[in-house]
């Protein structure tokens, strides 16, 4: 994983996106996340909105906007479930904040880095969700490590492909 020194970090620019892209990509991620499990039930293992949150957070490199974007996406996902609103809002806010902080320190354009980063954030998302559901809400939820590792690996693979596609939507300086 390539760490950036002080001079290189100053040279890092925030990637800019057209506002329409910034709105439509998360929206379509939520839409596909709700629709695709109808065709393939195993698609619930993938978390497209999390991938989008992490991508925009590391691209913008602004923790505040990363946390706000994560909160918005997470709340929209919560609204589609039967759980109380806020579970995924919290987890994705944390993921967005940390991803933006990481993006300012690590070269996140490398596919290997992206894979590891997404693997870590998926596990973090699952762990936070488990803690919130079990400790805050006192609802039934099991933690299966194998399942979570598989989910993290799948998400990381999808993210590498998806990030390469989303790179094309960046605005050129």
């Amino acid at each position, binding site marked *: 994983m390539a760490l950036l020194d002080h001079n290189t970090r100053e040279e890092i620019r925030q990637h800019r996106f057209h506002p329409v892209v910034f709105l439509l990509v998360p929206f379509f991620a939520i839409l596909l996340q709700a629709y695709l499990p109808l065709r393939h039930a195993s698609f619930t293992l993938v978390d497209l909105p999390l991938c989008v949150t992490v991508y925009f957070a590391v691209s913008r490199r602004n923790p505040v906007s990363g*946390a*706000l974007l994560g*909160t918005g996406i997470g709340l929209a996902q919560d609204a589609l479930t039967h759980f109380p609103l806020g579970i995924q809002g*919290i987890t994705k806010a944390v993921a967005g904040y940390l991803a933006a902080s990481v993006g300012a320190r690590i070269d996140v354009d490398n596919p290997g880095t992206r894979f590891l980063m997404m693997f870590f954030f998926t596990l973090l998302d699952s762990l936070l969700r488990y803690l919130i559901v079990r400790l805050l809400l006192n609802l039934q939820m099991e933690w299966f490590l194998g399942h979570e590792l598989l989910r993290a690996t799948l998400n990381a693979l999808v993210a590498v492909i998806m990030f390469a596609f989303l790179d094309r939507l960046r605005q050129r300086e």
Partner: protein
Amino acid sequence: MESFYSRYRNVLLLVALLLAQVIGLAVQVRRPAAADSKDAPQVRLIRYWVTGIVSPLEEFFLWTGHGIRGAWHGYINLRGVRSQNQLLQAEVDRLRMEQAALGEDVRQGQRLQALLNFKQQYIYQTVAAQVIGTSGTDRSRVLYIDKGSKDGLRADMPVITPDGVVGKVRDVFGHSAQVLEINDAASGLGVILQSTRLRGILRGTAEGKTEIINILPDEQIQPGEAVITSGGDQVYPRGLPVGVVERVVSDPERAPYMAVLVRPDAKLSRLEEVLVITQMGSVLPAQEESDLISSEQRAADVLAQRLPGQDTGPEQTKLGPNGKPLPGQDPNAPPPPAQPPLPLHPDRFSPPNEADTATAVGAQTAPDAAMPQPASTGKKPHRKHAPITPAATPAANAVPAQPTTPAAAPDSAAHDSTAPTQPEVQP
């Protein structure tokens, strides 16, 4: 203070965001059983917005997919439709006979239930709906359907498929509704094992399986046993198929009780269309009642048609000189009334035929009336045993024989030209 804020601005904002959501969560889960309880109005409003934005596009996706598949199935994949139609017709006939056979049991069951003051719930009305979306996560097993409050849906209505129970409506919006599947951890329904008659509560697990909990270890439950709804939960009508027993496992959370793993009959991961039960009642619906009656009639016809040499199809219809059916020979007309087969060698155990009855009655009233009459009178000679003709009414072999009265015999003969000639009786 200013420097502290500027230094920790990002962290403070994150903490504020998280705190606000934690407070929001706390407000939402003040009541017990949070997962299955109804939302507060504000929360419902947010769900309403998100669903209102997402659902139309999901419907569009679905509509596009169905259009492509419809074009394929409607125009290209039409081969075999004719043979499929014949198979389906045979299936309908078979089901009619089954329904007729079960009809008497149904009526008897109703009488017994009425005697015991049981409340049986029959399905009166259903609304067909298409599944348009999911929650998108494997932690929340809910579906979205394209029918809502404008179609008469309300919360807690059962959702089924022809295969089995799917779940119940949890939240209703204008043009869509959220369905909680039976394999969600927050769901529960009363079930009964079909052969052992063991009652229990079926719940979903965190892995998306279904199990019946609180089962004693000494219960004799075999894999493959059918599980049906018990009706005790006041949501699902009694007798709907739920699934089959997979295996019995120990339940560490509720020791020493066991858990029975159940494989749902409905294909919960591949649902496309579902039925929402919008109306139920305690008496058999009028449509089912009329279906039952028509099935009983049709079953007799179907059985009769299958008997060898008893075909009364259009080719058996007598044609006049102009090639048209004779009066009273309409091939589309309903089958004529039943005529009992006459015994070749009747004895005292044989059911009396109308000729004998008429003879007996006539003999009692006028002893000479049974004697052959001269041809000049225009009367046919009396024949003690009518011949068995292949053209006899087929329904006669299916419907129990009822001796006709002398007064009814000429009437029935007038309606049925293929019936054996009836002797005329002189008063």
